């Protein structure tokens, strides 16, 4: 648990064991901060032309002078930050003191640590430095980083925190933690899962990176359009251009998709090159990264939900990835990329790894479908939405479509609505397997969450008047990674499942 307190400096400065960041960290912090600043503002400066306008308005010399002043200020701040930043391990508590204007002290008890991440960006490698992060059960908001300590110090710190938790086996759940020495030797042993080149390529294609990259590149569309408009007429491309405009459009789309796919593969390679997963008893450790090396430790006793994610293309390619959720993990793709993620898995590999993460779990049972009235409700929703959209089109552009065209549009929308409702109904399923619950949702892309019943945080049983008439209910389950919903279950089944979940969650605490 981390907490911010005002340090009693007089007493604590005398205490031994305080350590500082590496002096190189100041320079590297400055560099990385500058790079981040430039990266974040580059699309704005280039895209809107604000950079050129500012240059013309202020003048090159004045701008350089301003930049030098800012750099000087940044260096001064970095030096002060370095002076104030110190840390030490006091028994099983990591203490960090930092702050430029406001002095803050953070205390992290080893028993509350749920994950440790070590990054080594390329610019830190020559100095043997790493960026070390620790996260408690309070989630991402509680994350504390030591930005630039020697790798040996990071390893020693991790060992110290681990040895503290090893002394309290009751806190580690049912799994017995192996001693640090054994685990160190286990780490030197072969990894129990690695990624080959083909798996990385398929993960790049099957992941959501392609959409993320498209969104990142969108500010460059306008400048590119201007450039094409200015330059293209001067080039003699008529000989290369296909005769049909449709072929040209298709080729253009293909080129864009191919470029995005290549970039997505490169992004996957950047992050997951040399991926290795080690089994260290109570912990799983993964290392990966082409240039920016990253090591993540997942404490299995803190693991809350394991989620198997497959995008639409991923299902076609037979690939997906596992996301391991712990406490305080917020949703969204950006947050998901910071989670403990095992990429490029086949169906068989995913099942094998899930059993490694959840010993005793066996996914033999077929998923049960929810009540068929859910399909009718979905169809009704889709039809209402389509009708609303059609009315809007008619209001905005009256008389544009003939009666026949309206008939065709209505038929097409009805067919599409029925297909979507059917797919979603088929995809939504659940299974109670011993003390675990498996829930699947999605249409083209699907997510299947597996979690022990006892990991429930709270639940809600919801019934509309229509559901009461039909004898069905919707179950909302609050878990560490957000909400899982089981819509339109048979009311008796929903209550039975709710009772079983509550019994497991409440009984686990008493045991």
């Amino acid at each position, binding site marked *: 648990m981390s907490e911010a307190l005002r340090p009693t400096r007089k007493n604590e400065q005398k205490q031994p064991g305080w350590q500082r960041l590496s002096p190189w960290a100041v320079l590297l912090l400055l560099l990385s901060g500058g790079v981040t600043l430039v990266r974040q503002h580059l699309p704005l400066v280039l895209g809107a032309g604000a950079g050129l306008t500012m240059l013309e308005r202020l003048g090159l010399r004045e701008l350089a002078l301003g930049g030098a002043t800012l750099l000087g200020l940044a260096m001064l701040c970095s030096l002060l930050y370095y002076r104030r930043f110190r840390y030490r391990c006091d028994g099983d508590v990591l203490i960090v003191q930092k702050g430029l204007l406001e002095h803050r002290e953070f205390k992290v008890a080893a028993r509350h640590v749920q994950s440790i991440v070590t990054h080594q960006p390329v610019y830190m490698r020559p100095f043997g430095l790493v960026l070390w992060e620790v996260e408690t059960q309070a989630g991402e908001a509680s994350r504390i980083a030591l930005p630039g300590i020697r790798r040996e110090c990071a390893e020693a710190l991790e060992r110290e925190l681990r040895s503290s938790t090893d002394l309290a086996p009751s806190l580690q759940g049912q799994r017995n933690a192996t001693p640090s020495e054994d685990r160190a030797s286990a780490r030197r042993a072969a990894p129990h899962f690695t990624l080959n080149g083909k798996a990385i390529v398929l993960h790049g294609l099957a992941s959501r990176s392609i959409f993320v990259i498209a969104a990142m590149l969108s500010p460059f569309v306008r400048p590119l359009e201007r450039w094409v408009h200015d330059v293209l007429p001067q080039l003699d491309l008529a000989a290369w251009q296909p005769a049909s405009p449709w072929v040209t459009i298709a080729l253009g789309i293909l080129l864009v998709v191919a470029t995005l796919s290549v970039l997505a593969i490169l992004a996957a390679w950047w992050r997951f090159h040399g991926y290795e997963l080690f089994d260290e008893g109570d912990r799983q450790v993964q290392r990966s990264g082409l240039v920016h090396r990253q090591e993540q430790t997942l404490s299995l006793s803190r693991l809350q939900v394991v989620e198997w994610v497959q995008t639409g293309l991923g299902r076609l390619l037979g690939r997906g990835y596992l996301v391991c959720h712990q*406490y305080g993990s917020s949703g969204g793709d950006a947050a998901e990329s910071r989670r403990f993620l095992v990429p490029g898995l086949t169906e068989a590999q995913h099942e094998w790894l899930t059993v490694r993460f959840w010993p005793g779990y066996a996914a033999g049972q077929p998923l049960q479908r929810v009540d068929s009235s859910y399909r009718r409700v979905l169809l009704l929703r889709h039809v209402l939405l389509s009708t609303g959209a059609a009315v809007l089109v008619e209001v905005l552009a009256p008389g544009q479509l003939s009666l026949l065209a309206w008939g065709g549009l209505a038929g097409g929308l009805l067919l599409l609505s029925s297909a979507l409702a059917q797919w979603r109904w088929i995809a939504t399923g659940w299974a109670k397997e011993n003390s675990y619950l498996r829930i699947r949702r999605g249409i083209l892309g699907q997510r299947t969450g597996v979690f022990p019943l006892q990991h*429930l945080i709270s639940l809600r049983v919801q019934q509309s008047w229509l559901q009461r008439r039909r004898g069905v209910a919707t179950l909302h389950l609050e878990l560490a990674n957000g909400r899982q919903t089981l819509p339109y279950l048979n009311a008796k089944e929903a209550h039975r499942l709710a009772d*079983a979940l509550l019994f497991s969650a409440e009984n686990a605490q008493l045991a």
Partner: protein
Amino acid sequence: MSFTNDSLDPQHLPTLADARLAPVSARLAPCQAVLRALHWLFLTALAAALPFLHEDFAAWQPWPALGIAALGTVAIALGWWEARRRAYGLRQHDVIYRRGLLVQRTQVLPLARLQHIETLSNPVERAFGLVRLVCFTAGGRGADMVLEGMTAAQARAIRQHLLAHLESTASERIESDLP
């Protein structure tokens, strides 16, 4: 700490459907009505004050305000009815809160997950002598359960019960931490 492991009959586990729920304070309905009335009055005033820019529509000026006022009256009446049907329950190991009129929602929070409790009240609630109990859990991103419509005495009693449970859980944890 003694460890027990009695056998249980899965057919006779305590069920949510059998949980006894008590209605919240009857003062919640008028309190909600006042709060909703203030909200809809503001919207009605806004609709009445905003002039129509087109002259052809100037004659229709009062109608949006009247429509919003009518909608507000229905919303207040439904809110009153809904507030009268709200209920809560305390069991040995969880808290239950039921709300909703057309869509009924029954929320259950295991006490084992409870981290801290807050008591809140706005001026209108204070005028009616009501408070809200807000329960937070570990890893949650906000309030996980809000018990509305508690009288001060009810809120105090529930708070005491929840705090006693929290303290006993904390002391059990400390005992189990000891070698």
